[in-house]
């Protein structure tokens, strides 16, 4: 049966999945060599984060048929990364994670092109994110997830029946781990719940009341937080505490030890001090491998349709035995981020400046320092200074005029909002309707522009 033996091919195993028809596949699955080649040629994937999950994701995606991958990460390699971030070696400590990770994977998997971006996710212009077919998140912070989610959701457009337009859906695959536990999820904005719809899955961190720290400390952590949050500022007026400066950490540790001795409280160690101050989440290679693999597979399934995608949230728990559970969460139909947008009724005379001020007080938005854009055109930009200067003259103009006298349309607003006392970047979609000329324009549109 010599003719049945396939010629040697790098995609020997993947071909089985991509070239053959199946019964348990996605709705748009069209198996064949063309599908495999299209994945290689056209699919563009962005990996956000080049840490524990990111390193695994880059490897997994490169070996799952993807050839055009970008990775973005603002961090540099640290010694404590080496127990799991397998693309890094001791001699890489101090170098940018994104650059080293991209280089290592390209060295080993020929034909793969990985473009590193060593910067903050907020540093990229919003359209940068629209260039990718799928965004895969390997992050350890809620704020960063929330930001990327709002960016991906901002591309989503709704038709006149408030149904999401399929071609504007930017799929995201999100993973997270802690010790032996983790989660993997698929987010199809407008179809499945977005990160913000189920934000309750990530309860805010519990903080100790300041009076406990100051007056009735009971645990080692109380003594450490006293040194970190109260004593530091008292002694170093104005100098910010840097958790990555070993001398700062040592100072906090010494003060915490003294306080613990004073009150007869046991258990202050240097390791605990670091853990409490930096809020260290324990992490191991195996859990990152499991979660990243699940995310990479979902990415392949979304891109190719070769199997049904996860609906829509998988939790993995290896603490006691092994439990894998899939939950189908539902969308919050009133979600400010993935919904059609907050509706704002305005008088046609309202100026852009007045509108920006209004966003600050709007109870659902509370966005300060807002930049505004309409259909890709910058109406006003807070930064960089060049753009600010160029758009400043718009502030005194009527928003209605700036939006080309359309009576009802979507605009995008970026700015900062504060959540749990912390300032975070945010991106919101708003539906602006101008009151006075409502009927008139309806007729205009009906007439066909």
């Amino acid at each position, binding site marked *: 049966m010599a003719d049945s033996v396939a010629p040697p091919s790098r995609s020997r195993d993947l071909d089985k999945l991509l070239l053959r028809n199946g019964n348990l596949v996605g709705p748009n699955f069209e198996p064949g060599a063309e599908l495999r080649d299209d994945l290689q040629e056209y699919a563009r994937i962005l990996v956000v984060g080049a840490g524990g999950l990111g390193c695994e994701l880059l490897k997994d995606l490169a070996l799952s048929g993807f050839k055009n991958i970008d990775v973005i990460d603002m961090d540099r390699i640290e010694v404590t990364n080496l*127990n799991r971030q397998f693309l890094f070696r001791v001699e890489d400590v101090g170098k940018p994670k994104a650059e080293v990770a991209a280089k290592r994977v390209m060295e080993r998997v020929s034909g793969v092109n990985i473009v590193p971006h060593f910067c903050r996710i907020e540093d990229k212009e919003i359209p940068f994110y629209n260039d990718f077919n799928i965004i895969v998140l390997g992050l350890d912070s809620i704020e960063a997830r929330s930001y990327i989610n709002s960016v991906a959701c901002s591309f989503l457009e709704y038709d006149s029946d408030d149904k999401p337009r399929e071609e504007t859906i930017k799929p995201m695959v999100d993973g997270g781990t802690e010790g032996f536990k983790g989660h993997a999820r698929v987010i199809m904005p407008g179809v499945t719940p977005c990160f913000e719809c189920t934000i309750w899955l990530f309860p805010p961190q519990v903080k100790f009341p300041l009076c406990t720290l100051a007056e009735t400390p009971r*645990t080692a952590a109380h003594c450490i937080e006293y040194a970190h949050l109260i004593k530091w500022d008292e002694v170093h007026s104005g100098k910010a505490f840097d958790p990555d400066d070993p001398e700062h950490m040592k100072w906090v540790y010494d003060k915490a030890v003294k306080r613990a001795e004073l009150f007869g409280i046991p258990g202050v160690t240097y390791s605990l001090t670091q853990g409490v101050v930096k809020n260290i989440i324990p992490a191991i290679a195996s859990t990152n491998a499991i979660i990243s693999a699940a995310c990479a597979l979902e990415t392949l399934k979304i891109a190719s349709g070769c199997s049904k995608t996860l609906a829509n949230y998988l939790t993995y728990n290896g603490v006691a*035995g092994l439990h894998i559970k899939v939950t189908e969460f539902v969308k919050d139909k009133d979600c400010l981020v993935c919904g059609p947008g907050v509706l704002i009724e305005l008088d046609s005379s309202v100026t852009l400046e007045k509108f920006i001020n209004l966003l600050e007080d709007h109870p659902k938005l509370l966005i300060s320092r807002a930049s505004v854009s309409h259909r890709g055109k910058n109406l006003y930009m807070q930064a960089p200074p060049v753009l600010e200067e160029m758009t400043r003259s718009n502030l005194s103009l009527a928003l209605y005029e700036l939006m080309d006298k359309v009576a009802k349309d979507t605009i995008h607003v970026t700015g900062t909002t504060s959540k749990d006392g912390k300032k975070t970047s945010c991106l919101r979609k708003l539906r602006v309707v101008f009151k006075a000329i409502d009927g008139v324009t309806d007729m205009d549109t009906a007439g066909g522009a």
Partner: protein
Amino acid sequence: MAEPKIKYDRQLRIWGEQGQAALEKASICLLNCGPTGSETLKNLVLGGIGSITVIDGSKVVLGDLGNNFMLDESCLGESKAKSVCAFLQELNDAVKAKFIEEYPEALIKTNPSFFSQFTLVVATQLVEDSMVKLDKICREANVMLIFARSYGLTGLVRTSVKEHTVIESKPDHFLDDLRLNNPWPELRKFAETIDINVQDPVAHKHTPYVVILLKVAEEWAKIHQGSLPSTREEKREFKELLKSKTIAFDEDNYKEAVEASFKVFSSRGISQDLKQIIDDSQAEVSSNSSNYWVMVAALKDFIANEGGGEAPLEGSIPDMTSSTEHYVNLQKIYQAKAEADFLSIEQRVRNILKKLGREPESISKATIKSFCRNSRKLKVCRYRLIEDEFSNPSITELQKYLTDEDYSVAVGFYILLRAADRFAANYNCFPGEFEGPLDEDISRLKTTAVGVLSDLGCNGSTVTEDLINEMCRFGAAELHAVAAFIGGIASQEVIKLITKQFLISRSPSHAME
């Protein structure tokens, strides 16, 4: 050198220095280094496992480069074991890595005693026949064994050890041990020294809830002929009584007391799980009993005597609203009792060891202390032989899962994986392994699956056409992402087996992606 400690910081926070030391002492043998095996070892090498031995007889071909990150162009035509081993060594030079270019099947057949030198064997991509043989060899040599298999979009991880005993199971949620339902004299005495009706509002709201509950329970008992609340109504009344003691709306300690009041009502004594362990036949110790069972024997004796039906006290208390002074004093009282319980158990352990003719000091103080602290969370896992699982399954359980919507896919693939192995034994290839139409393989696999089911005693049960089709489509492909997933699970299990912490998986784990 301080560096390994920094490098391993994020994992030391999980399994501690003892767990790390156990990993660094362990020697692991890997059978077959395709992506499933390579990825399993990668996760262990990064964590600083003692030594690895990679066994694989094959040479690297082009297809291997598409699913295994550890192989690149320069490896083509080379020994796969050698190439994978070299990459793994690069990840961590503290690990001793070596390889043997030989097919595992041959080794299992010709040199069974080879495996006894290892702490644990990870056997990947083995077919049924070799699994059964290897399982017997490892069981006899008392070597831990984990099977891992990736097959298309499905896979399997199965642990096989005769007995795995766990002291530090470290569960996510476990109720603290405050003994509010059964306070010992010193704790009662301490509560007596505190006036919960103190006038000073600052002192009032800084009385720890442990003291509040003890005193209010005593008050309740006085007016209820010495008994504690037991009915729903009584429990409600008890909470009302607690609330009536507050003097301001912001007294967090009283809120905590109401929330924790169930600790007063809960039944005394040990849990069913612990009872099962102390009643285990292994608790009747002999000269070759393990240290674990010697300590269980001591624990059993303690519970029956000094313990008065209770396990040794853990000694730690959760944080609660309190003045520093009350809290620290309370902590000391719990610690003193835990220390006394420990000494009593230690004495028993030494006596038992002496009676068994063993060195009385052969179990360290630290081990006994850890055992006492974790005595309510002890675990014992036992696995039957793979051969038993295959030839003597629980038919009712199997049938239940075959028809249960949540499990039918996983069990379906479990059956089909076995059918695929049988198929391979008959036709010298896996269903769908080669190019060409799948129809013939589909019908052959279906017949084989019916045969497997009937041998298992599930006559009349079937696996759905969809799954059979999928299985043929998979054609025994080892996809990288599936291999990384399965390898990740396998490495978690290895870590739990070697550190003897957390809890390993008790049943074959199947994952359909």
